């Protein structure tokens, strides 16, 4: 089955960010540092502890990330957010508050005009998370 997943680039804080997401979402986190990888010898000492590739898997949740960025360096943009579709009111409340720890609430969690609960958080690593739970879909 074809799947679509977000791949996030960080600027040296990939381990910290993915550890935080692991705390928020649970599941299994794997982290591959530059040291011990096939590009180890090509990279300076300052990069050895950086994350080459990280993956967080929990059921249908699959998020990947890295500290590696292109030749132009790291440039944070606003083109992509991660939408979290929750399966219960309890779950949306829990996830929303966990992700908001140390971050900024852009849109407080509440029931919206379409009948679903929705809220947006900019987490402490600069990633935007949109939480939604559509009560009507359960009917």
């Amino acid at each position, binding site marked *: *089955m*074809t*799947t*679509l*997943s*977000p*791949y*996030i*680039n*960080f600027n040296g804080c990939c381990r910290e960010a993915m550890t935080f997401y692991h705390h928020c*979402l649970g599941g299994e986190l794997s982290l591959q540092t530059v040291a011990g990888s*096939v590009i180890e010898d090509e990279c300076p000492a300052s990069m050895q502890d950086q994350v080459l590739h990280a993956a967080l898997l*929990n*059921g*249908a*949740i*699959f*998020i*990947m990330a890295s500290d590696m*960025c*292109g030749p*132009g360096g*790291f*440039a*944070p*943009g*606003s*083109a*992509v*957010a*991660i*939408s*979290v*579709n*929750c*399966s219960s009111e309890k*779950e949306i409340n829990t*996830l929303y508050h966990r992700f908001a720890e140390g971050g900024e609430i852009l849109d407080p969690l509440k029931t919206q*005009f379409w009948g679903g609960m929705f809220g947006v958080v900019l987490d402490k690593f*600069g990633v935007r998370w*949109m939480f939604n739970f559509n009560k009507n879909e359960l009917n």
Partner: protein
Amino acid sequence: MATVNPYLNFQDNTEEAFNFYKTVFGTEFSTIVRFKDSPIADKVAEADKEKIMHIALPIGNGNLLMATDMLSSMGQELRTGNNFSLSVTPESEEEALKFFNGLAEGGTIEAPFKKEFWGGFFGMILDRFGVRWMINYQPQS
């Protein structure tokens, strides 16, 4: 259990981008809401009423690619960066090539689609709408 999906922002051209993604992935929009049909219709400039407030394109059996238009008339400006890519894992090498070639049309190939050291096939594209895609295909051993 929650699911996660990428949500994109475009500067006024969501519909054009999604018409393109629809042809690449071969699926139909599951939702399309224009500003004129939303509760904030009265607050939106006349020229923006047809713009997209929310659109969703199913990919595979469980994922949704979603997006909205940033409206210049409301002071919303998109910041283009390189902090996100969309990773697609197709079902077969054939499908992987179809997606790769489709997304590459008018875009820039950043890594040609080929077999990598980890045994999987991989390619990367910056598409003509500024979205970066990774196509990953792992043959079953």
